[in-house]
């Protein structure tokens, strides 16, 4: 079953960036960029931690399991590990505080942590209310709350001309109605629309909100959803991480018109 077939779900707004891969080069726009990644201890999240560290970013990762967070930090010592659960309202500000304390501010927030819903996947009619609540808490409310808590820092970064970006990791299940993917699909569809609206509203502040579908990847989440999938047909998470980092780099290469205007006016 080919669940995810689109690779990029860029936002159809007039401000959409032209997404061109940058790769590592002397003008690497990710150098010293402060990035926080949720769900950073496995799958795409862990690959993003590696990729962004390789490109010179300062990276904080958030994940629920202390052991896994500590393993990542042991393997990748420059990374800042934070234990927290984005689906819990009470965790959002402690997570935010620790990210900002570790990085001194924030330029890029990647809401990657995702909950698949009931495992094995169920028809919506068989989905327990508690399961869909949990899925929405992780995939929709978590990114909403964390972005809201980070907005002051992101806007401050944008005012300094650094271009602030929020990436919400999406799925083609956000767009297509796949049977048995009800909880996940509905949550990702809501997240996609949240991203679009927020991107419109925050353009004034210089904060870009992107929804990116990384495609079908060979990750623990995919294995849980489709246990009998032919793994050789799936994208490696490190490849998806490289593509996603390229997209973020492309956005970061553009300065905010507003910050330029401020400098121009002040100097002029």
């Amino acid at each position, binding site marked *: 079953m080919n669940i995810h077939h689109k690779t990029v779900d860029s936002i159809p707004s007039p401000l959409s960036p032209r997404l061109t891969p940058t790769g590592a080069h002397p003008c690497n726009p990710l150098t010293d960029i402060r990035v926080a990644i949720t769900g950073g201890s496995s799958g795409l999240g862990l690959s993003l931690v590696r990729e962004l560290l390789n490109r010179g970013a300062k990276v904080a990762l958030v994940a629920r399991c202390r052991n896994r967070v500590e393993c990542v930090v042991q393997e990748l010592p420059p990374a*800042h*590990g*934070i*234990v927290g659960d984005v689906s819990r309202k009470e965790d*959002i*500000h*402690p*997570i*935010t*505080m*620790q990210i*900002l*304390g*570790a990085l*001194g*501010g924030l330029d890029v927030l990647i809401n990657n942590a995702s909950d698949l819903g009931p495992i094995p996947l169920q028809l919506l009619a068989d989905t327990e209310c508690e399961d869909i609540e949990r899925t929405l808490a992780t995939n929709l409310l978590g990114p909403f709350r964390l972005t809201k*808590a980070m*907005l*002051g*820092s992101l*806007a*401050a970064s944008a*005012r*300094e*001309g650094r271009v602030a970006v929020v990436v919400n990791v999406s799925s083609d299940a956000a767009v297509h109605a796949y049977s048995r993917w009800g909880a996940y699909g509905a949550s990702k569809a809501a997240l996609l629309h949240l991203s679009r609206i927020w991107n419109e*509203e925050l353009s*004034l*502040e210089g904060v870009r909100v992107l929804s990116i579908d990384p495609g079908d990847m060979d990750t623990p989440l995919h294995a849980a959803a489709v246990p009998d999938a032919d793994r050789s047909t799936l994208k490696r998470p490190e490849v998806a991480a490289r593509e996603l980092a390229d997209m973020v780099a492309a956005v970061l290469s553009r300065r905010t018109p507003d*910050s330029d205007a*401020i*400098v121009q*006016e*002040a*100097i002029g």
Partner: protein
Amino acid sequence: MIAAHLPIQRPSNAKVLIVDGQGNIEHRARSEFANLLRPGDVVVANDAATLPASLSGQHSRTGRRIEVRLAGRDSLDGNRQFSAVVFGEGNFRTPTEDRSKPPELNCGDRLELGRLRGTVLRLLNHPRFISLQFEGSPREIWEGLARHGRPIQYAHLPTPLAVWDTWTPIAGPPVAFEPPSAGFVLDWSMLASMSARKIRFGTITHAAGLSSTGDPELDALLPFAEPYRIPRSTSLMIKHAQASHGRIIAIGTTVARALEHTAAMFDGVVPFGERLATQRLGASSRLRVVDAILSGTHERGTSHYELLRAFVDDEILGRIDKELNARDYRTHEFGDSVFLERAANRTRPLGPAICRRMTVNSSTPSVSAKECA
């Protein structure tokens, strides 16, 4: 005035008392604040997020329960050393002035505060005002503060404040000890409407310290020295406004303190950078940068009230007090607001003599009184 007892940052019926440069007073709904601004104005707010600065725990030597309230810091970076006020057992339902005393504190005493472990480095001229050093890596200290700390609470509020109650919508770096509550007025919609009217919005980050300790001797030292950072964009906005006769409007006393501190150092110019505000603004201060301030409604005798005396004279402040009382304005963190334009007779001619005096009048508590051996 009456205490605002609900932790609602922008109640629909919030009011603002406005005083123009001639001392005329009027009243408006605070939601109309942006209408008081003019194209070309620069609005500067403090984007510090509020640390959960109340840490409950135990004084190791005596085993007695204590509450430590982080009160100040010398730098925005690092999280190992803080000044702190120590209280005895009890909680926020007891007004601070009635709280029990902590055990005698000595240099080297260890404090167990949840997962955090700290040591009393020295006493700061007062038996329960200490310099506290945490043990562990910065990551462990951040986690300990984030997980164990609670926002400093207020006896006039019936329910405990959650950390999100204390963060303004624009909150960024977690460096303040109490909320820069004048910023509660702001929301993103208001910022958008300002932008549409060519009103610039900038921030500083100012580690707002404790507003009250319940101890007259300690309160007399307020405000403590507070580090702040002025970003490049805000510095440029101010420079531009100064050149084009736009007004500089401070959201809150911390912003006024920081901008005036820098302006006193640089002869009216406000370059970006991090500095430590040590001065106290009051009736004898001349304002060099800030043209107007939006602030809470403060009670006579507090350091915030004293700061307002830099903007308007005592006759006007007296009239303001009467109006606030007569019209049931609410006070404290979640209360109503005042918007004061600097009185027309308080112009900006500042000479070097004033700069020197402001530096000498430092309110920084001495930290050398009882050094550890």
